[in-house]
């Protein structure tokens, strides 16, 4: 127990002493995960909207597939991306393996079904009257779609936050396709895994605290935005 407290104290010292190596790892983590979520969000929301509002063959199959993909382990995604990007793989010529781009690709694949499945649930139960009102007031299909999304934006934002929380904390994919290379592809989860295996708990705990603070911050942000709307 004393070891744990000592490790937490050391972690806090590390965090507030502006340790450059630690903050570089945090920076890489945020940079990679933010890029992944920014690139994948528009596509995911559009796909979720089509699944919720469209009528086409194979729709139910696609919805079930998205829900199934939620359960795919990060390491399996990592393995798949690894096979594609490895020297002998179909995309080997791009030489992306063990780069931040590879990590972004892996995290995009992980985030996609989360944003789609959660947004689809939000959009499916949204009031159809929103779409009809927008259409009857002359909105084009894209404009009506954006109007519906604006009306349920807190639900969609929660889906994006959930996906972001998942990818910034995943270790399997980042480790496999990033390689945990210091100054290049070492992010918070891969660093925690490595430090723990070395018995260096302080740095692992410090990085874990960053993830916890991030989760708390995002949820507070979402909660306050909703509160502001309800009391406007």
């Amino acid at each position: 127990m004393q070891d744990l407290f000592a490790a937490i104290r050391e972690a806090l010292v590390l965090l507030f002493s502006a340790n450059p190596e630690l903050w570089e790892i945090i920076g890489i983590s945020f940079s990679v995960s933010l890029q992944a979520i920014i690139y994948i969000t528009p596509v995911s929301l559009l796909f979720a909207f089509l699944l919720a509002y469209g009528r086409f063959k194979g729709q139910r199959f696609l919805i079930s597939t998205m829900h199934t993909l939620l359960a795919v382990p990060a390491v399996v995604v990592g393995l798949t991306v690894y096979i594609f990007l490895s020297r002998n793989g179909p995309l080997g010529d791009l030489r992306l393996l063990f780069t931040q781009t590879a990590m972004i690709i892996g995290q995009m694949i992980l985030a996609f079904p989360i944003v789609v499945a959660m947004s689809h649930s939000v959009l499916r139960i949204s009031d159809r009257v929103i779409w009809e009102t927008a259409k009857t007031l002359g909105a084009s299909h894209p404009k009506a779609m954006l109007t519906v999304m604006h009306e349920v934006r807190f639900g969609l934002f929660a889906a994006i936050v959930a996906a972001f929380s998942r990818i910034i904390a995943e270790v399997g994919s980042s480790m496999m396709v990033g390689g945990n290379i210091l100054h290049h592809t070492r992010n918070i989860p891969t660093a925690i895994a490595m430090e723990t295996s070395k018995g260096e708990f302080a740095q692992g705990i410090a990085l874990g605290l960053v993830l916890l603070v991030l989760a708390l911050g995002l949820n507070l942000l979402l909660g306050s935005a909703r509160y502001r709307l309800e009391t406007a």
Partner: protein
Amino acid sequence: MTGSISFENIEKIYGDRVLLSVDSFTMAPGECALISGDNGSGKTTLLKIASGLLKPEKGIVIKNQISLPWAKAKSRLQRLVVYLHQTPYMFDKSVYDNIAYGLRTAKIPKAQIDEHVWRSLHWGRLDHLTHRNAKLLSGGEKQRVALTRARIIKPGFLILDEPTASMDRRSRQQTYQLVRQLQQEGMSIVVSTHDIEPFFDIIDHHYYLEAGHLHEIDIRSRSQRKKHKTVVTTFQRREN
């Protein structure tokens, strides 16, 4: 001016149940038509088809003597007709932004939008609510915002689905007054309501929907006017 739009042999089927079977229904420019009928008789279904929001299983739409396939008719109807839901949906924005929605969609310059919206706010007696979130308004205020939001885009036809349902007397009076103003401005209106009497002197046609079948009550001839009044009175009695 927008020409008439006719709907011939319209059928809407849910499962194996024929919900609506209308031989003929016409919306004519500058006229006010009233549709009455019991709950579940198919009023909302007919009005949603007439505004291009619901696809019928059968039937043709005729505009300017040209029969249109549904895909074409749908986009024409959505361009020409504004449909107001029984409980109008207010976007999660200010009253100003709700009213400006249609104009922004039509990509009208900002300065013109501002001028139109302020004039419309005054028309709907909504000046004092301009910056309020429209979602937080009362039922009567929401209906006034919805009417103003529809009027500002100058639709060819305005369809009102039970515009005074579940409203208090004061809100009902304000809504009647605005609908009358719209009719006096020459807007073509189709209104479905149980509350027939207040619209009695502005309507040109009275249709009665019974189990999905539409009958026109000729309100011009003396005997039919009597029948029309009987329908009105029966409804008022049922309402009370």
